[in-house]
């Protein structure tokens, strides 16, 4: 069995897949990748199932190797990726040979980055998923010097790139009503939609704090609410009236009022907004939102159509002086960068 070698790995890294739907009744939220679109993009690049697990990285990145030839793909928040001395394109697949070192350094934009492997990461599933949910005792903590087993890769293409949607700059997020929306005064709902929120440094897979100037948001009798079902993407007000955007590891029920719930299509962008980035919210028509909702499978098909061979960037070719370059050619660079 091929193994991924974790030479260095930053805190916050974990194995993730699409999570554990179906356990809400028993108190376990879905969990899974913070950026579900990035999982689909990895599956498209490697031509494999979107149910396979990948490595979710945040913060410091890490450096990695393999003990047998492997295919890899890089998606999510763009990091600087190097294979030895060579820069690697993001949103692309590559080949990694034993003895080579893949180094990923901190994301320039966004929060969550993904390293996918041909055959997927093949740790033992728990409750039907390989997704780590550390606060619930699921999954293993990853440490430098450790290894992860990989599934068998039937082989396939590498050196391919796709057009991923740019979702690392914050912006307007579409929302729908949640459990307690009707308890907020109308003027507070309007003020909520007119406020620009800044993504606070305080945040993790459970939730992200949103800072704002101005009065707190509260409902009447909010400390006496009966605990109610929570879904990822809900925006919850704490006791002091500060919004928290709830992530994949949110609790399954809670008693703080929730003002709105983010459209699944916009949740990756909301969670990928880095500290200091700004977000605004707009309530949209629920019927229209449901009609236009794109399933994850449909997104996978859509981005798969943008797959094309990766042409090496001239900047990456050593001894560039020997080549005659046509002005303006930057072939193959994925266009989701800065």
């Amino acid at each position: 069995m091929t193994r991924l070698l974790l030479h260095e790995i930053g805190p916050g890294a974990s194995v993730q897949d699409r999570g554990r739907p179906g356990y809400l009744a028993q108190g376990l939220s879905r969990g899974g990748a913070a950026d579900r679109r990035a999982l689909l993009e990895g599956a498209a690049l490697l031509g494999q199932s979107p149910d396979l697990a990948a490595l979710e990285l945040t913060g410091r990145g890490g450096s990695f190797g393999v003990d047998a030839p492997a295919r890899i793909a890089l998606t999510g928040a763009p990091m600087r990726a190097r294979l030895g001395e060579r820069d690697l394109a993001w949103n692309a697949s590559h080949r990694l040979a034993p003895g080579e070192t893949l180094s990923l350094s901190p994301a320039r934009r966004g929060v969550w980055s993904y390293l996918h492997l041909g055959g997927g990461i093949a740790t033992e599933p728990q409750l039907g998923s390989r997704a780590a949910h550390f606060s619930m005792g699921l999954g293993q903590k990853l440490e430098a010097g450790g290894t992860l087993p990989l599934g068998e890769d039937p082989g396939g293409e590498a050196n391919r790139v796709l057009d991923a949607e740019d979702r690392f700059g914050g912006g307007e997020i579409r929302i729908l009503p949640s459990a307690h929306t009707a308890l907020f005064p109308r003027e507070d709902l309007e003020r909520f939609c007119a406020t620009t929120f800044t993504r606070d440094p305080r945040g993790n897979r459970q939730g992200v704090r949103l800072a704002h100037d101005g009065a707190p948001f509260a409902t009447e009798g909010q400390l006496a609410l009966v605990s109610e079902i929570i879904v990822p993407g809900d925006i919850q007000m704490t006791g002091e009236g500060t919004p928290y955007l709830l992530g994949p590891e949110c609790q399954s029920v809670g008693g703080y009022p929730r003002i709105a719930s983010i459209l699944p299509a916009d949740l990756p962008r909301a969670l990928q907004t880095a500290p200091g980035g700004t977000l605004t919210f707009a309530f949209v028509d629920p019927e229209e939102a449901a009609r236009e909702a794109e399933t994850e499978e449909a997104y996978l098909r859509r981005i798969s159509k943008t797959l094309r061979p990766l042409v090496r960037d001239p900047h990456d070719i050593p001894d560039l002086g020997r080549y005659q370059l046509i002005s303006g050619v930057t072939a193959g660079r994925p266009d989701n960068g800065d």
Partner: protein
Amino acid sequence: MRRTMPATERAPLPRLTPLGLDGILVTFGDTLSDPANRAALAFRAAIEEAAWDGVRETASSLCSAYLAFDPARLSLAEVTERVHDLLARRDWSAEGLPARRRRFVIPASFEGDHAPQLADAAKLAGLDPEEAVAQICARPLRALALGYAPGQAYLGSLPEHWDLARQKDLTPTVKEGAVVTAVRQVIVFASTSPTGWRQIGMTRFRCFRPEDAETPIALAPGDEVQLRPVSAAELDDLAESGPDGGAEVEVLE
């Protein structure tokens, strides 16, 4: 996409509340009551039984049933209509409890370090600590809902003088197995985590057993839990007895 501000009036109970793009809550009470909880459990079971095409998942909370649907297969209007039809079929608050419920009698210590806030909680309930323990253990409590952490049961309801507010400041950590109380309910903690509830005892019962592929979650909504007081020394002996922590289980007919 067209923008629209949501309504800010609440419909009368039982009430349908959309929860995001693909969820609906069917709420039977705005405060916890036995009829509302029975209705939530029974209505969730009825949705499960109906097995509508396009329903992905169901759950219940203290006073609501929840269903998640696939918008590509079931429209919000359609699912709303079906839920209304089902609601009209009977008086859900008069429904009985789920069949084949179980009763767990779980040993718990209310001594020393196992009960750091027992005196505090007892005083708020207007009792001395011995009376408080006697009342907590006097009769079985029902698992009203599971949540917060996997398999963690909200057990209730205690008499009215146990309507203790949550603490303003969270206790940074209570351990898995801890017995905590607030708002006329008791919880045996399923994971080590912070809480605003007061810790009054300790068990060795594990609500969540991720290593057990067959039965990772011990309790189901509707099950009964009765705590049986034991000494701190007896509780220590139970640490090695397995995930049930010495609990006895019987099926209620």
